[in-house]
């Protein structure tokens, strides 16, 4: 019998309340090697969900398994295989990209020689090699986000969690970041990403999850989502696609409107 590999991420009945439920019984499974886009309107619970998966927030209830590891019972083991990137690059102004990558490699206990080789490769890949020994304080938002991305990849994570990684990036930087992510997914890495740029999700993601009011309201490929919404979606949300086929934007708006109407 062939053993079934654990999913890269398995979230069951996840609950987190602040003054109101932010995440309300969320179930989510992301397969290994999958590029998964999590969409939802502002305040839907996307960031809270990702922060709980990354170990930055403790859920009130539910379970999180990362590559088969119970992230709540053994957070250190889970964090070892996860990388987290937010829309605000988490870097230190007074460190150079090289020093930053050395710091992260140290935090994740990567062998120095291996880390150095990976860092060099990543800096070249992301077009940062010429700035590798300059302090990050003068870098643009795009360069900072690329440094953060290099940091996320230097310890070779199996699951990369990205929260709005393309916010504020110029076209060139956004393309480089997307290219690196696509390469990573092609090489077998698992990526879960939130974005407000629906076109990015449409082009890059293998599957898309739509979250609203703290719950997953729909999930699947773009075609599957269209089917879930039904043919009337385009008309229902006032879409103007002449082809008659609902775009992701039409589909998304129809999906997030459903629970609101139900509520």
């Amino acid at each position: 019998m062939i053993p079934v590999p654990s999913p890269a991420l398995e979230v069951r009945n996840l609950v987190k309340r602040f003054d109101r439920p932010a995440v309300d019984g969320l179930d989510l499974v992301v397969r290994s090697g999958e590029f998964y886009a999590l969409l939802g309107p502002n305040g839907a619970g996307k960031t809270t969900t990702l922060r709980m998966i990354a170990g930055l927030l403790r859920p009130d209830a539910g379970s999180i398994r990362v590559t088969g590891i119970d992230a709540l019972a053994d957070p250190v083991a889970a964090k070892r295989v996860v990388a987290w990137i937010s829309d605000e690059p988490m870097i230190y102004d007074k460190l150079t990209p090289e020093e930053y990558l050395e710091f992260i490699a140290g935090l994740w206990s990567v062998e120095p020689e291996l880390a150095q080789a990976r860092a060099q490769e990543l800096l070249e890949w992301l077009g940062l090699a010429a700035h590798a020994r300059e302090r990050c304080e003068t870098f643009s938002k795009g360069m900072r986000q690329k440094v953060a991305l290099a940091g996320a990849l230097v310890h070779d994570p199996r699951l990369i969690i990205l929260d709005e990684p393309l916010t504020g990036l110029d076209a060139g930087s956004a393309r480089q970041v997307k290219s690196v992510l696509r390469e990573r997914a092609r090489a077998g890495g698992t990526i879960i990403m939130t974005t407000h740029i629906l076109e990015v999700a449409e082009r890059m993601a293998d599957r898309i999850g739509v979250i609203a009011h703290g719950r997953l309201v729909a999930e699947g490929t773009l075609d599957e989502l269209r089917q879930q919404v039904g043919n009337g979606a385009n008309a229902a949300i006032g879409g103007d696609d002449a082809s008659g086929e609902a775009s992701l934007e039409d589909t998304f708006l129809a999906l997030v409107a459903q629970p609101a109407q139900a509520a």
Partner: protein
Amino acid sequence: MIQAGTAVWFARHESRLAWRDWLSMMTAGRRARARGVAIGFVAFIIFMHVVAYFVVGPSATAAPDKHTMITITATLLLAWLLMISQAMESMTRAFYARADLDLILASPTAAHKLFAIRISTVALTVAAMALPLAGPFIDMLIWRGGIRWLGAYGIIVAMGTAAAALAVALTVALFRAIGPKRTRLVAQVVAAVIGAAFVIGLQVAAILSYGTLSQASVLRSDGLFALAPDAGSVFWWPAHAVLGEIGPLAGVLIFSFVLLAIAVALVAPRFGEYAVAAAGAENAPTSRAQRRTIFRITSPRRALRRKEWILLRRDPWLVSQTLMQMLYLVPPAILLWRSFQAGGGAVNLLVPVLVMAAGQLSGGLAWLTISGEDAPDLVATAPVPAGFILRAKIEAVLGIIAVIFAPLVAALAIVSPWHALVTGLGVVIAAASATAIQLWFRTQAKRSQFRRRQVSSRVATFAEAFSSIGWAATAAVAAVSLWLAIAPAVFTLALLGGARYLSPRKHA
């Protein structure tokens, strides 16, 4: 209705911003605290009046002889240097704070008017900030010595005005001499040095001449008396003004206003240019490429410690803040050096000074490493057990304290092993206490918000200060008698317990 674009209109705009900024700083952004802050302020003023009654009350009727003139002039000089230091810091911030610069320069108003107001505001702020400290002393002098002391208030205004003028001149001179990129750091260091130089200079003179840390011994010395100018000299005008002589008061006030007017006339039209240059320098690429980093770190603990040390070393704000505290270690170091030569009981003075300095330095460093984390999410997602990050950061702080204080304690051990032991223990306990307070009251902030750390929690600020003072007192007494040291130690421990109880993390 004030006409838009006039100097008065700008003054109203600036004063409103300054008032709201000050209120926000004092209340840490919580308006509900305003009443508590007001009550605390009134209590502080009353307390200062009581202190002033005992400190300067007996001197209120002193004859205006040369000794009195020397004491008043030295006090004014000290206050003025502190004002210049503060004005330089404000001026540097005015140049480097981009905030509304684009809006002002893009608007069709005469920007130089606003910049003139902005420079004048520094003068006003510096004088206003001196009032809560100097006012109670002047009030007590007036009460005990008569209305003639009212002139001291005029001198505070004059000193604030002259300090702002000099600060503008110094900052612009630095801009021209070393460029906008280096000015920020150098101006802060110069401000710190100016602020501390006078006190330290007097202490060093006192040590070298009399073997004591007391500045008063220099001020009362015959040598200084002989060196001082004659009674009729212009040099004493500020002192005469403080004593209520109208002529010198008017002269000093006019002189200071003329200085400020010249500074405003010269700098205001080019203020925008300087500010733009400062902003450009901030965004300019690092001119000197760093050496290639050879990856050597093999553990998370080492990675965290090294990161903290690099960041602390490269933090210009911290350099100036730390330098100020380190400068105060110069006199005790000289006293220690003299003790080598002369032997004797001067070492008793060193114990509390070193312990106090260790506590204060640790507090600042601990805030930077614990609360001032620029990438909190990054370190929180690192695969290390809970508490590991904080432990590594505390090690980084205590490592720096050890590097700074160990040589001093070792040198002290040669003179007196007992004093060295007490000082060593005191340094460790004071540093640990200050770090613990920062742990209990930790917040999440950017390192650049270091200046605001003291307003984020008043309890933490006072607890940190009184803990350092308490351990310094304990160590000073312990150096003489261990039994007597129990009382201040218990008091300081109670204070720490109180701080822990009031901390938001008491259940954490």
